[in-house]
């Protein structure tokens, strides 16, 4: 019994026939090369466009992902990280009444103007303010460096910010005192952290809430832009978020951490043309690929029409010949996808090093692009098959 799949395979192997689809393709190397180049091109285009799109959305939550939190409090007016509205800090304190909540961290969040100490130009930087004793990020190194912030006017600069903010990292490592202006107030870089530029912010810095108040004189000390809520282990974040939302007044929104990230991604997806542009780009690749594959398969079937008619005259079924065209499509899809995948990997690495966008070959996208190529090739094959209907065996005598 255990051998039966093997014997089934063996009998399939015994019943195999001349691999006509494979030979039709490989015995015309130029046409095959053109077809594969076209498919690979379409595949690469789809990989790049979808990669950029997902990378940009992913990049928008670079900082969001770092927070050590299960549930967050936001102002209902907040719809993205570039326009965080404030809400009363006491709402965050109120959540401590919930038995599942074990810790909270009030966070100030705003985009401020950073002056490049070298070139004197200004650029918008994402500034986070927190109480230096509170846990902020999952990565503990920030908390260790937080004591440097207890002195007023000190900031931690994100070394992975874009270079337009100035040679902060280099200067700091040389031991120089790095001072500059943020929002017109003098600050000193007390240390470096590694966070990463996100879509809405080219650079980040962290400071104490007290310094933050000084950088933003208009803001009220009792208001914050983000409240981090940590739950006891095993608590269901979604349920707690729902419960807190019901208990708290409607001047705050309660979201899980995933919901917080989704809010940000949704903003970029819906409020900007990014998603549309890149999806359109991918669709263009798909259409171009369809046209190329269809042209190739159609002319291939046309060129071999007398041969197909001969096979029909010999007693081969039309369905069997349609199968040959379908297999040609399938082979083209597989053979064209491989170079597209390899080139995609290479280009992603290039994009990562060139733009610091978190573009990776995630399996989901790899499968999606393969599916698109498969649909492209099999769809084109199905259209090219209509030409086979013209193969009339009575006409070949």
């Amino acid at each position, binding site marked *: 019994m255990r051998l039966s799949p093997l014997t089934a395979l063996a009998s399939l192997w015994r019943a195999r*026939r001349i691999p006509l689809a494979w030979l039709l393709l490989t*015995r015309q190397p130029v046409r095959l090369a053109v077809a594969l180049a076209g498919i690979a091109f379409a595949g690469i285009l789809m990989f790049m466009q979808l990669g950029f799109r997902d990378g940009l959305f992913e990049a928008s939550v670079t900082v969001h992902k770092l927070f050590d939190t299960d549930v967050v409090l936001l102002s209902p007016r907040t719809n993205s990280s570039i326009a965080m509205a404030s809400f009363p800090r006491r709402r965050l304190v109120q959540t401590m009444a919930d038995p599942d909540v074990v810790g909270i961290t009030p966070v100030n969040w705003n985009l401020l103007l950073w002056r490049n100490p070298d070139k004197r130009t200004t650029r918008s930087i994402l500034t986070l303010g927190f109480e230096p004793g509170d846990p902020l990020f999952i990565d503990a190194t920030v908390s260790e460096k937080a004591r440097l912030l207890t002195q007023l006017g000190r900031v931690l600069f994100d070394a992975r910010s874009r270079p337009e903010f100035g040679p902060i990292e280099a200067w700091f490592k040389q031991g120089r005192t790095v001072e500059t202006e943020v929002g017109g107030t003098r600050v000193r870089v007390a240390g470096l952290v590694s966070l990463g530029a996100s879509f809405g912010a080219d650079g980040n810095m962290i400071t104490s809430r007290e310094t933050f108040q000084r950088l933003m004189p208009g803001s009220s000390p009792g208001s914050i832009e983000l409240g981090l809520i940590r739950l006891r282990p095993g608590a269901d974040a979604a349920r707690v978020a729902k419960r807190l939302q019901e208990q708290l007044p409607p001047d705050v929104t309660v979201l899980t951490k995933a919901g917080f990230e989704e809010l940000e991604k949704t903003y970029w997806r819906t409020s900007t043309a990014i998603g549309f542009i890149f999806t359109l780009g991918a669709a263009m690749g798909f259409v171009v690929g369809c046209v190329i594959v269809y042209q190739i398969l159609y002319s291939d079937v046309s060129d071999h029409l007398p041969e197909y008619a001969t096979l029909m005259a010999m007693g081969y079924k039309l369905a069997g010949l349609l199968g040959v065209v379908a297999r040609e499509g399938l082979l083209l899809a597989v053979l064209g996808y491989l170079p597209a995948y390899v080139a995609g990997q290479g280009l992603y690495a290039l994009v990562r090093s060139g733009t610091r966008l978190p573009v990776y070959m995630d399996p989901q996208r790899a499968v999606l692009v393969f599916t698109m190529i498969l649909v492209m090739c099999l769809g084109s094959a199905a259209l090219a098959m209509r030409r086979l209907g013209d193969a009339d065996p009575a006409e070949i005598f």
Partner: protein
Amino acid sequence: MPIRPKSFERGRALTSAAISVSQLCHWYGSGTTRRQVLQRVALEIEPGEVVLLTGPSGCGKTTLLTLVGALRQVQEGSVRLFGEELHGAGRAQRQQLRRRIGMIFQGHNLLRCLSSEQNVQMGADLLEGLGYRARRDQAREWLRAVGLGDHLDKLPHDLSGGQKQRVAIARALAAKPALLLADEPTAALDSRTGREVVDLLKRLAREQGCAVLMVTHDPRILDVADRLLRMEDGQLFSQQLQVG
């Protein structure tokens, strides 16, 4: 007048005939342009018999061949292949019947992308119940039988006209047909090669007990026939064999 083979007169059962055609009429076009190409054609061919069909072009020879080859729908009259009626037969039934008919065309009609061995195996692949190796071995044997044992891996492109036609014969015979239809198989060949090909065809068909209906214009090969038919204006006549 109906043409009857000698064997029929010897009283063989009617159903044993490879082909049995009677009252066959065929038209092309419709309405006022409708033109009759076959008029009450009758014909019988016994297994193992080689019948040659001649006639001026446009007289309906090829139409008869396509009707007998189950490539075209029978409009009127009766065509029986191996006892099966073709009149009213559907696409699938005709396709099934075609598996038992070998066809050799004026142009060799080989698959350009296949080697001669693979081309012949396309014929052998139609046989059911045989493993891949068995079918391949058969293909090789047939190629050896037509004298192309050294050209197994050559593409049609690299073969001469006579060699291509011999591959086509091997391909037609590899499917073990009970009936072989050939449309001017020597048209593209010089006289000596044409002679060789036809002799080979006859010998191999004999060995298989396979009936042969061959359309030809070539007067040099008429002597291979057991029987000679002549067609004119859609009507079929028996012709005297001129041996010599």
